[in-house]
């Protein structure tokens, strides 16, 4: 069976084309202001690269915050289900899988087949998601991809007290004015975010293997801060930002 999964996140669209359980092609694009248009363009782009006609795709399942806006989807998959399926597909030993997106974070406990046994969400508050790191990157005038390495240079950190992205930006500005070293501020930001993610994981209990996906999974500064807190190794599979779309595509084959 040939199936497509589309993950319409708060910031980016991800699309994965799967044939008989293996990834054939994938692509991503910013959501922009016209999500439906961006989704249509992304579909055409991936089909062209894969050399497959639209008619050759049996199911297209959408997931993510903007799933309803994907015009060509034949069905929807709950992001929590998609997360569990993708987690176990990518890392067969995965039993706790969590995803940090731009505006939402979610975590699942699952069995060996990728079925959800429990889940927890950190949604509707950007402080526990990627937007927080983008704000920190702006406030520290450091590109996002350099923020993690910067934080790893610190040996200690102050504690950030702000729990809102808006206040956190102000707090960084005042820490800079007080001559706090930038690497310590960066580390403080990751500690604060890891604290919020940890609380989500504490609700579930972390059973190894613990797997992290989503865009933020690539951030070494975040992973270091989280591993320090939960005391367990966190596995990140390749192309972690495509996990949601992959999971949706896999659900088409065997729900």
């Amino acid at each position, binding site marked *: 069976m040939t199936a497509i999964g589309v993950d319409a996140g708060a910031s980016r669209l991800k699309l994965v084309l799967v044939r008989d359980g293996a990834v054939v092609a994938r692509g991503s694009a910013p959501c922009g*202001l016209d999500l439906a248009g961006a989704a249509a363009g992304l579909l055409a782009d991936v089909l062209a690269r894969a050399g497959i006609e639209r008619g050759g795709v049996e199911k297209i399942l959408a997931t993510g915050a903007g799933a309803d806006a994907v015009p060509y989807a034949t069905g929807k998959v709950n992001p929590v289900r998609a997360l569990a399926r993708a987690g176990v597909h990518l890392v067969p030993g995965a039993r706790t899988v969590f995803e940090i997106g731009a505006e939402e974070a979610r975590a699942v406990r699952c069995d060996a087949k990728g079925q959800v046994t429990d889940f927890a969400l950190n949604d509707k508050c*950007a402080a526990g998601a990627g937007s927080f790191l983008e704000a920190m990157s702006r406030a520290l005038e450091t590109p996002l991809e350099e923020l993690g390495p910067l934080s790893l240079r610190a040996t200690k950190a102050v504690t950030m007290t702000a*729990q809102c992205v*808006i*206040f956190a930006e*102000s707090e960084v*500005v005042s820490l800079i004015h007080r001559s706090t070293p930038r690497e310590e501020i960066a580390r403080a930001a990751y500690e604060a975010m890891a604290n919020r993610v940890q609380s989500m994981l504490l609700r579930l209990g972390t059973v190894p293997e613990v797997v992290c996906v989503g865009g933020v999974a690539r951030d070494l500064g975040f992973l270091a801060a989280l591993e320090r807190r939960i005391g367990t190794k966190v596995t990140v599979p390749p192309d972690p930002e495509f996990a949601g779309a992959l999971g949706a595509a896999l659900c088409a084959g065997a729900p």
Partner: protein
Amino acid sequence: MADREYWRWSEVRQVLPGRDWKGAKAVTAGIDVGSVGSKAVVMLDGAIGSWAIMRTGFNSPDSAQQVLGRALEGTGLAASDIHYVVGTGYGRVNVPMAKKTVTEISCHARGANHIWGKSVRTILDVGGQDIKAIRVDEAGNVVSFLMNDKCAAGTGRGMEVIADLLAVPIDELGELSLKVDQDPAPVNCTCVVFAKSEAVALLRKGWSKEKVLAAYCAAMAVRMHSLLSRVGVEREFAVTGGQSRNSGIVTRLERTLGFPRLPAADVAAGLDPMLAGAIGAALYAKAFHEKAAKG
């Protein structure tokens, strides 16, 4: 960002005329060290004699000392002439010359009661980085309160976000937002991050600045109303803090409540809402002083 913080107070002081500085039985002082501004009020037998406001420096004890000194300038009195000092303020405030520290909520409540009289029952304090909702009784004792400093929604900082986005000076924003025939639906009223995204989308749809501001201020007013609902709103209702000057929010809040807030009291007589905490602290100082004298 420092020059845009319009909730900062200018550094001023006043010695009220016609006060009998030498003849007062109880000379008390309240010192309120806030995160942004420090205030001191000196009272003569429970009436305001002088006051001062200045920017809080890097350390609390120095700020407390300096602002008290400012308030005493030209009065003929020294700090040692004060019978009782009460300190208050933000967090773990340290006012070394205070015999007692009282919470900022209790002091603010007593101060509001002094400024507006015993009819005030609900106070909304909208500051730069926090919002407080306080229910009081007729003596100015706190009945119920909550403080929000977790979310930027409704704070001065939250307003700064839309002011920056629309390039509108923050002190003109309120009036501009009222230049609409009819209020549009509010944007997200619990989160500035989401409210801002919605405002951006509305702008792209071609909405005017005034209409976007109206939607944003309407949302912030809804936010404040929901905070007030938790403590319960009872007339009379007073608004203090930097955002109390934001007509875009206050007018809409009054519409939702169905009644107006109490008008400003006589600022020339030292009854400035900015001084509410220090006034309350000075009143507590008088009460503690009298209690100690009795017994």
